[in-house]
């Protein structure tokens, strides 16, 4: 709860929002609660929640940075996964917790299953300890600057992806593929990331590019999936037919 929200001297309007609430200690079932907010032009959802908080409506939610770099305030806003800190408040908005994780309370969910994936997929560059000196090609640097450094791991794409998670294909979801691509692009990484991605169900992706649509920092994990698929096909062709190398 930051100190910024606290004085709304001249509200321009009064908005109503509905929030999906639950407290496992008190109620058995989640319920919808309605709140009224004095609206100031360009007010964000997170600021509205902070306003309510300051008024004694203690709705549990996560938010840290307020400038879309930490990715902790993802929630369903009008049914779509978005960051509360860069979504402008609208009248009759609905706020719900993400649906793919167990709810802890109100808008807070337990995302520890995503963290297990970090270890499972080896998000870090896998290198032999002797391999410490390296150069960074310019195009790698550019890819990091434009794509890989920018993913804030907010899980919006994981929420909206229709193909993940899929038990039979082991597809983990768009963000994880982007992170595999990041690790593979690092100059010291020695793991075969193409076969890793290939074995993790990238073929289940339906190329709907919903991950690109919902990404709050304008990345396209779908493109990374497409690149991996193309490379996997090229390698297979090379293996069996002996042509197609570069």
């Amino acid at each position, binding site marked *: 709860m930051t100190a910024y929200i606290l004085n709304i001297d001249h509200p321009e309007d009064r908005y109503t929002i509905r929030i999906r609430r639950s407290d496992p200690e008190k109620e058995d079932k989640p319920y919808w609660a309605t709140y009224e907010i004095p609206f100031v*032009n360009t*007010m964000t959802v997170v600021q509205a929640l902070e306003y309510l908080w300051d008024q004694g409506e203690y709705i549990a939610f996560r938010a840290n*940075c*307020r400038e879309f770099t930490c990715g902790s305030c993802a929630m369903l806003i009008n049914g779509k996964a978005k960051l509360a800190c860069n979504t*402008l408040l609208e009248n009759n908005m609905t706020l719900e917790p993400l649906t793919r994780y167990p709810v802890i309370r109100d808008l807070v969910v337990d995302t520890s299953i995503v963290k297990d994936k970090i270890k499972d997929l*080896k*998000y870090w560059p896998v290198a032999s300890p002797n391999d410490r000196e390296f150069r*960074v090609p*310019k195009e790698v640097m550019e890819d990091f600057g434009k794509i890989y*450094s920018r993913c804030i791991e907010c899980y919006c794409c994981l929420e909206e992806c229709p193909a993940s998670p899929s038990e039979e294909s082991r597809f983990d979801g768009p963000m994880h593929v982007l992170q595999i691509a990041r690790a593979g692009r690092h100059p010291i990484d020695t793991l075969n990331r193409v076969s890793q991605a290939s074995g993790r169900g990238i073929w289940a992706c339906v190329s709907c590019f919903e991950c690109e649509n919902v990404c709050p920092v304008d990345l396209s994990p779908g493109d990374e999936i497409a690149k991996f698929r193309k490379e996997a096909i090229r390698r297979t062709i090379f293996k069996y037919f002996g042509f197609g190398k570069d």
Partner: protein
Amino acid sequence: MIGYEILRTDVLVVGGGAAACMAAISAKNEGVDVLMLDKGQLGKSGCSPNAHGGMAIYHKDKNDSWKVHVEDTLMSGGFLNDQKIVKTLCQEGAKFGRILENYGSLFNRDDNGSYSVRKFGGHRYKRSIFCGDETGHEMMAGLRREVHRQNISFRDEVMLIKLLVDEGEVTGAVGWDIATGGFYQILASSVILATADCSGLWPSASERQRGDGVYMAFEAGAELTDLEFIQYHPTHAWWPYGIRGSVSESFRSEGGYLLNSENERFMGRYDPEKMELATRDKVSVCIHKEILAGRGAVNGGILASVTHLDPDHIAKRLPLILKKYMGFGYDIRKQPIEVKPRPHYHCGGVMINGQGKTKVPRLFAAGAITAGVHGANRLGTNALVDILVYGHIAGRKAASGTNKKTFPKINLDHQVREEIRRVASLFEETGKKQPGIVPPLRRKHWEMMDAHMGVLRTEEGMNTMLKEIKRAETEDLPNLTVKDKSHIYNYELRDALEIPFRLTIEKMATQAALARQESRGSHYREDFTKRNDRDWLKNIVFYRKDGEIKMEIRDVEESVVRLDELPDYTASDSPWH
């Protein structure tokens, strides 16, 4: 009575930012057990992911050296820095670029493959390596991956409420699990505090920096210093409403103008030479003076404009800011925006020695929680070096003093029970206890700290602040209770637990600012506007003795650079460099 779980580890690292990760990794590399406790979520909490600028580690220019870097840091810090600590910082920083890259980060390179460097205000040479304007985020990307790779155990959303002290030594801590409402007793051979600074006592931008670690270290017997120095960042976004909280430093560095309501570049009156590019502390004071003189913008800030620059240049050099403002319907290429100085970094904190040790045996500290590196005013991009260098040192030293033999045997059950009882009492409503006082109390203190302990300070204002703290301590503190009775994810309880931390540190900071009868760095008094090196080349230190708060004024040690080595600096009595 609620029970608690016992966790055992060799080294307990408190925090989840870069300093904590670095400390945990370095301790783990020494072959000991490490446990990290983060009040938020690892990689998503703390300030490190939001650091935009860079880290000053790379002395690329042939005239540049660690000594010049030390001098720059000291001049910016008003010569109050702990020089030995600064020296280590400037000497050791260089290796961390490569270390982080081996963990998975990457920093911008030149065509010939060496690091690109940026120049920041106050540095004489370009020495800050960076990754776009997301340096902290990229640093955390690498550190977090290494924490996972090394299988370092960590727990998210656990707030420490007390350090356990036995016969003057720290033997562990009591933790409160925010997500479940349960309690932990953590038994550790050594504890590293790598929590944030105290700038959240002022109305700062976000959910962090509440000074928990600083208070707990103080309570355990550590010494605190430089608490009067809070750096205000001059150009925090202020309007449109929704954008509040972001910093836009590059506005100034790219040649933006600061304008008052009369459309005047008012910095010309205060600093005709450097204009908008004067140091942060100075620009903050100037903006505040303009606003107080009634020349502020409509919504209470001041105007910052880049409309005179080439629109293509803006799109190329300020893409993120442009995008951010576009999202709120503002085109910065066509209209000026409103900014205001806001609290950014608190320079004070826990005193450490060159090994990252505090005064209390087995208690270490690293990162923003510590004082000494930054003195009276932090030099831009020095913070990210500080957290890595001292995170590394503290991690190694904490691990080396540890072996299973020194493992604390004493079970301080009664101390843990007392803490659990204290938390439970916050749920009770008896006598005069009024639920719901936490948010208004916090709001009041934010506003008052901003007004009386902010950019411009007066004796009268600070006395008002002290009176209010006294009132809150006698009236509100004993009657603290929460309205939200849930044990799960109860942020009201978290904030109620922070109130005693807040009041104590506020009191010490105000007392220090009142005692320091001069202006220096980020401490500017309207009744003493000049820097006074004769009387005030001193640190104000706080410690606890027999349950009382003691204040002591100590001379600065000129062990690396003497003041007379910097004639340009000593010749002026301006508070700012």
